[in-house]
């Protein structure tokens, strides 16, 4: 039997019972729509979260002082020592291959006073390369000047929110500002960056690292952040950074974390989340599959006579199996297509009505959902189709 004929026969059988076939494929359609909708939301959240995390650029490596490990206590009672990370360390890392920018980071929380107003906020001690490492954008004025490390002047760059709180609509450039006990002069304002994990990135002030060390009376940096050329493996750069710092400190008393590693772990977690919600939708798809089993079983009973006739006309069991399997698959495939239209439509509508809701439907999900629907149809058809194929011709012809 020719394939197109088998499919045409299946379609004729399906359209002969319009309401019944519609309800059956509706079961599959609802299942596929649920899978598509849930995975679209899952994937949307995935992309949204990753975008939040990578808004500073994805090619960042962080170095923190101290090595996370547990060892035996030294026998003599001498306290172990960790050499702090210094501005010199940061400068040394600038010369490592593929490194594009290095910024020291010290952070703290202080009172800021300017324009007759007082606000407690987060202070970051950084250098000029900060803009490059974390892709910050300056709205007015300029960022901290380069090449002033230890002798940095008391300049400050304000986050968008902090500027508004302290200066309102006025131009703050050149204004004097007190942080803790130190005096600063405003040289720039940053563009809005938004919230990130509950930290308001706009409610911050950036001052030179040397001044922040002085402000918080610290001898070492909290972190050194390094950005490297796009496309270079993070591991290779991390190894090179480690080698330089080890040579300077004599041992590995620091911890290197690549953002790529963090993002990969995060991405894996979010993939599992998407798969989990997809599986929830899959349950309704399974119920739809049961609907196909039911309707095909009824069809085989109703058409026992016809099966006997087909055998008398010389259809081998294989052909009869194919005809009924074909019907189940066509039901599932058409239901799947309806479900895809429904699911993608609802997803589009949702993102149109609620723009804040992250929704994204990758093509691979669409193809996969349709494939799964067809496989479910095939599985649902096996039992009834086998029953049809194994019917005795004489008995089947005689059946009322």
């Amino acid at each position, binding site marked *: *039997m020719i394939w197109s004929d088998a499919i045409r026969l299946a379609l004729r059988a399906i359209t*002969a019972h319009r309401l019944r076939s519609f309800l059956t494929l509706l079961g599959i359609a609802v299942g596929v729509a649920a899978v598509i909708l849930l995975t679209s939301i899952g994937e949307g959240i995935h992309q949204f979260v990753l975008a939040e995390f990578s808004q500073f650029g994805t090619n960042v490596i962080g170095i923190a002082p101290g090595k996370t490990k547990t060892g035996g206590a030294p026998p003599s009672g001498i306290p172990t020592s960790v050499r702090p990370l210094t501005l010199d360390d940061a400068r040394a890392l600038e010369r490592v291959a593929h490194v594009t920018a290095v910024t020291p980071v010290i952070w703290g929380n202080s009172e800021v006073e300017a324009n007759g107003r007082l606000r407690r906020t987060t202070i970051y001690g950084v250098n000029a390369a900060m803009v490059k490492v974390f892709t910050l954008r300056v709205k007015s004025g300029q960022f901290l000047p380069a090449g002033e490390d230890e002798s940095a002047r008391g300049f400050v760059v304000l986050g968008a929110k902090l500027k508004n709180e302290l200066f309102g609509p006025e131009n703050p450039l050149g204004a004097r500002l007190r942080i803790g006990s130190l005096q600063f002069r405003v040289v720039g304002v940053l563009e809005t960056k938004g919230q990130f994990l509950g930290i308001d990135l706009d409610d911050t002030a950036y001052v030179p690292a040397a001044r922040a060390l002085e402000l918080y009376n610290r001898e070492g940096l909290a972190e050194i952040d390094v950005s490297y050329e796009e496309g270079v493996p993070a591991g290779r750069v991390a190894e090179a950074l480690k080698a330089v710092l080890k040579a300077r400190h004599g041992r590995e008393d620091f911890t290197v974390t690549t953002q790529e590693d963090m993002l990969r772990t995060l991405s894996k977690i979010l993939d599992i989340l998407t798969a989990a919600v997809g599986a929830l939708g899959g349950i309704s798809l399974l119920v739809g599959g049961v609907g196909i089993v039911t309707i095909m079983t009824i069809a085989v009973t109703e058409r026992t006579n016809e099966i006997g006739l087909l055998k*008398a*006309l*010389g259809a081998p*069991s294989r052909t009869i199996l194919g005809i009924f399997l074909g019907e189940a698959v066509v039901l599932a495939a058409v239901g799947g297509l309806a479900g895809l239209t429904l699911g993608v439509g609802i997803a589009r509508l949702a993102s149109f009505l609620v723009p804040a809701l992250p929704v994204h439907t990758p093509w691979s999900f669409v193809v996969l959902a349709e494939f799964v629907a067809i496989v479910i149809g095939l599985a649902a058809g096996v039992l009834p189709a086998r029953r049809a194929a194994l019917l005795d011709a004489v008995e089947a*012809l005689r059946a009322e």
Partner: protein
Amino acid sequence: MPQIELRNIERVFTLGDSEVHALRTLDLTVAAGEYIAIMGPSGSGKSTLLNLLGLLDRPNSGAYLLEGRDVTTLTAEEQARVRRERIGFVFQSFHLVPRLTAAENVALPMMLAGIPHGERSRRVAQALKDYGLASRADHRPDQLSGGQRQRVAIARATIMHPAMILADEPTGNLDRATGEDVMALLEGLNAGGVTLIVVTHDAALGNRARRRVAMEDGRKVEDR
């Protein structure tokens, strides 16, 4: 070489604990182009014999040689092929597929045989014209009269040019005049060289055949 040769056929059905001998030590030889009526009361085994001849059933013992070949030992698939190419069935209750048009019902055996669409529609159109059904091609069975339905069924049985036609009470569901038309049609096919085997309990119908086989309790009691 006879077209059909049955040698010592036995067919036993098991109903619960008891065994029913539907056919006992049956021998039958049919030459190509014969017109045979198989007659007998219900339960005499005439339908079982027809099913055996049509390869819808297998004997418990004995040999069935169709055109010189033992067909009882063929696989189910090979038997299906023989049915498709050599045998045409006509049933008492027509057995048309209700959701298909007359033309599609006639085309069904060719569809199963994998004959391409173009040749199929050409042969169907010719067959419908031959049987006076050209204007009914797009009607479904429930829109046809009994006689028209049986003519569609006969067109379907002959579309593959079989060597023999097996008819089980072909006029059983028709009035006398329509039945007469249908029998004339089948006899016309026989005149064209096709072997015609008709199962009936109607003596008038049986007397039209050139050879009559009477069955009783699974035995052939008369053959002339």
